[in-house]
């Protein structure tokens, strides 16, 4: 490792990559035949429901389940006391922040304390969901109410009620010398921030807040557990990672990994929220006790109350520059909710706040704050949207103070390949200058915008992305067709883009390849479909398997001519003898003879790629503000993104458009309302209002391609960064439309009006 090597050059000519075939699982999706988590019906199946705490912070004194158990049709009732003892308490699961298995198990069902409105305290399995729900209402729970902690400032204040007397944060998060209650800390500092601020010509200091928003997948969480023998368990579920569910279940059920099979069904949206066990262990325990399969399907209000949103935050930014617009110093103080248990997205949020700029003196002080709300979960570039809103808004205000165009300020300070990144290694290839110039040259940016209360805004965003491990298996059939199986859950079409990479690497028609998402019994360990890693990392595993296949097939071809594999060339579906190019065999011919050359031709690969290509994106947005009502209308929206190499350009656009609209909802409307008792008041899709088709215009997409040398085709992850820039861009547009500089999300009508009136009041 780290021997000086030159990576192989990135491919630049493609036959399959860059085309737009219809996805292989499309027919099933448009006919309703595709099997999602709730579409499975097993003989004798029971239905599970949960009882949830109405209190945000309380000790469970007693639970009486007798009336529930007596109800006709109820087969079993469980509480936290009925769950197995964990086999392992701390496991690396790769997500930023701390991973304590006991915390996740306690989040599934409380043991002695409940930590949020919606925390599960009991579960019922019955003949049908109505009986199960009725039974839950008959369970009697005695609570001793405890003082709840409901916002980040109260949580870190001296004397705050302590949620966890005993917790082990990760290596970067530890209680500070100030002995803050309820928080872990991430601290990074380079240079001399305070002295440099003295020397800056212009300095701005701003405070920003954002509200919690949910990932909002249309399909609620669902799982079906069935014991196939006394000690083997199968879980059918919609998940972003079958192997991760297996890992969690092995710990929670105290079982061996090989005794658990997780079958990933089609998944109706995840965005980071379906990467963990919520109901699988409850279903498994109830299935064991009843001897019947148990399905649990969460209601929408359960999803909103009990599964992690992305946190509410408070971010203080101080930014300073010289007359030329060079950013000299930055100081960020970030309080991000972690929710009921440690491990929210403070780390990625803090590290993405300013990483796209080359600032010599930086202080980043981030806190993972525990409080009586659901455990926060990743939502598509976790933490980055909030941090970007604060940092980009401060930059725009600083540029205004300095009399410099904000895009020019971004260009002056843009992180370029070779520049030192805040975490201390040089920036790999990144098309930052190209991206910023692309904004300036975009027809949208240059188009005139006329009319009252209309304005244009811009923002620029950065996200890391993950590598981590994936496995792929590729098998030739005797007719020359190919079966490809990977362990990556397919959220939106990756089984097709992985098949396209296989077709490209093998030099054959995409139509010959049949792709499949494997369960945990049928393919090697594959990390979750998160962190924009699937097309990148699983793609590398697929390419690696293809090259092993080609090597084996060269050997098989060689047998026809009685030569070694080294004497055979292969290109675009044809094997050619090096010493006599007239001696060729087609791919299908070699497959047809497999029986006579050594048996079925298969290859598999597991890869843990290291060269992740970072993601950058930008938005240009035009808005019109109704100054009577505070309503902000999006007139025009353009998304730009550098994807390295677009495997399926329509799918890439889909990611850009979907993430942009989620970002628009985050910016203008979505928020969690908790009352002062800590109860979530809007756990329905009527009152947690996500964008509809009428709320947004077309999202115009510009795809840039700066190849990532870490992938043979230059691929970068694409799925996450689109959600990062919209709130900052919209805030900028509103500022240019009506001269009001908002600092709080969402920029809903009430908040916009308040800001307009405050400004008038000052005038």
């Amino acid at each position, binding site marked *: 490792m780290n021997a000086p090597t030159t990576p192989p050059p990135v491919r630049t000519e493609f036959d399959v990559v860059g085309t737009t075939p219809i996805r292989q699982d499309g027919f099933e999706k448009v006919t309703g035949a595709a099997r999602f988590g709730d579409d499975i019906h097993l003989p004798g199946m029971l239905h599970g429901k949960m009882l949830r705490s109405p209190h945000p912070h309380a000790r469970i004194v007693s639970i009486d389940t007798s009336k529930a158990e007596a109800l006709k049709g109820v087969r079993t009732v469980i509480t936290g006391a009925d769950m197995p003892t964990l086999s392992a308490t701390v496991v690396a699961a790769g997500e930023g922040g701390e991973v304590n298995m006991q915390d996740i198990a306690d989040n599934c069902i409380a043991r002695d304390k409940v930590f949020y409105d919606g925390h599960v305290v009991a579960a019922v399995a019955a003949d049908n969901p109505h009986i199960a729900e009725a039974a839950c209402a008959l369970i009697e729970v005695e609570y001793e109410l405890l003082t709840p902690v409901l916002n980040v400032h109260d949580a870190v204040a001296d004397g705050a009620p302590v949620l966890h007397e005993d917790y082990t944060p990760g290596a970067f998060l530890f209680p500070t010398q100030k002995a803050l209650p309820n928080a872990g800390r991430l601290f990074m500092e380079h240079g001399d921030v305070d002295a440099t601020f003295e020397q800056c010509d212009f300095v701005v200091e701003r405070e920003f807040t954002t509200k919690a928003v949910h990932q909002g997948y249309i*399909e609620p969480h669902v799982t079906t557990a069935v014991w196939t023998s006394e000690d083997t368990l199968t879980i059918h579920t919609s998940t972003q990672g079958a192997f991760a569910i297996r890992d969690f279940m092995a710990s929670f059920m105290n079982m061996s990994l090989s005794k658990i099979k997780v079958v990933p069904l089609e998944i109706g949206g995840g965005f980071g929220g379906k990467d963990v066990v919520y109901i699988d262990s409850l279903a498994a325990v109830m299935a064991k006790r009843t001897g019947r399969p148990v399905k649990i399907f969460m209601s929408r209000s359960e999803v909103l109350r009990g599964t992690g949103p992305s946190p509410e935050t408070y971010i203080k930014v101080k930014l300073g520059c010289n007359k030329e617009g060079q950013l000299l110093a930055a100081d960020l103080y970030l309080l991000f909710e972690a929710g009921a248990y440690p491990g929210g997205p403070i780390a990625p949020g803090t590290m993405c706040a300013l990483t796209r700029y080359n600032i010599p003196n930086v202080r980043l002080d981030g806190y993972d704050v525990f409080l009586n709300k659901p455990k926060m979960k990743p939502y598509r570039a976790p933490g980055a949207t909030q941090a970007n809103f604060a940092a980009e808004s401060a930059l725009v205000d600083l540029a205004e103070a300095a009399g410099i165009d904000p895009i020019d300020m971004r260009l002056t300070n843009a992180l370029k390949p070779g520049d030192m990144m805040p975490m201390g290694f040089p920036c790999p290839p990144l098309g930052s200058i190209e991206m910023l110039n692309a904004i300036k040259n975009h027809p949208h940016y240059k188009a005139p915008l006329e009319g009252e209360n209309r304005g244009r805004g811009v923002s620029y965003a950065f996200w890391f992305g993950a590598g981590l491990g994936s496995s792929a298996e590729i098998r030739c059939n005797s007719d020359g067709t190919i079966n490809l199986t990977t362990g990556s859950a397919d959220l939106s079409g990756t089984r097709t883009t992985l098949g396209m990479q296989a077709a490209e690497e093998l030099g054959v028609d995409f139509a010959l390849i049949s792709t499949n998402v494997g369960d945990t019994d049928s393919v090697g360990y594959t990390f979750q479909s998160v962190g924009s890693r699937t097309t990148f990392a699983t793609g590398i595993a697929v390419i690696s398997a293809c090259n092993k296949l080609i090597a084996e097939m060269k050997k098989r071809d060689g047998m026809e001519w009685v030569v070694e594999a080294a004497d055979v060339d292969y290109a675009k579906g044809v094997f050619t003898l090096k010493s006599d190019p007239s001696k060729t065999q087609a791919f299908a011919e070699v497959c047809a003879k497999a029986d006579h050359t050594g048996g079925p031709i298969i290859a598999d690969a597991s890869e843990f790629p290291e060269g992740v290509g970072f993601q950058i994106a930008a938005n240009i947005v035009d808005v019109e503000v109704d100054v009577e009502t505070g309503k902000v209308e999006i007139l025009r929206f353009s998304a730009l993104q550098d994807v390295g190499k677009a495997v399926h350009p329509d799918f890439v656009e889909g990611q850009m458009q979907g993430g942009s*609209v989620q970002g628009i909802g985050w910016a203008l409307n979505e928020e969690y309302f908790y009352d002062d008792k800590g109860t979530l008041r809007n756990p329905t*899709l009527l009152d947690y209002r996500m964008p*509809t088709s009428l709320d947004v215009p077309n999202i115009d997409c510009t795809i840039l391609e700066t190849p990532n040398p870490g992938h043979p085709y230059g691929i970068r992850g694409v799925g996450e960064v689109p959600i990062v820039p919209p709130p900052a861009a919209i805030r900028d547009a509103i500022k240019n439309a009506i001269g009001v500089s908002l600092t709080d999300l969402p920029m809903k009508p009430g908040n916009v009006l308040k800001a307009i009136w405050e400004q008038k009041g000052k005038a």
Partner: protein
Amino acid sequence: MSKTHVTTTVNGDEVEFLVEPRQSLLEVLRDELQLTGTKEGCNDGNCGACSVVFDGTLVASCCVLGVEAEGKEVETIEGMASPEGLHPLQQAFLEETGMQCGICTPGFLISSKELLKAKPNPSEEEIRFWLANNLCRCTGYDKIVKAVQKAAAVMEEA
């Protein structure tokens, strides 16, 4: 709770089933008739994933009771394609990448089918207005609208 016998027509076929009064049409379709193409997203009429045509009207099947189906005609996603092939809307959703995870797709297809029946040549605004009761979290709606526009054009020509 005792069950009511219901006879109804689903996708042109006469079917009968027993249902408790408290069961929704959505539940009946999915659990009694095993027609799982219609999806549950919220169970209170706010997401459109359970859209079906009920006696000629576009409805959220989670807000209709199973017993109300007596003597009525129900059209679901399973009845949209014919033995000859996919409906132009289904084909357009495939060609225009009008879906990502696919969970909202049956609801959108049913809603779009009714839209094009009522307005064979809708403007973009009319499409967005009509489809505003169907939530999609993956696509941002852009390619869904384009798929409906494509299907409208194909159906006009036919």
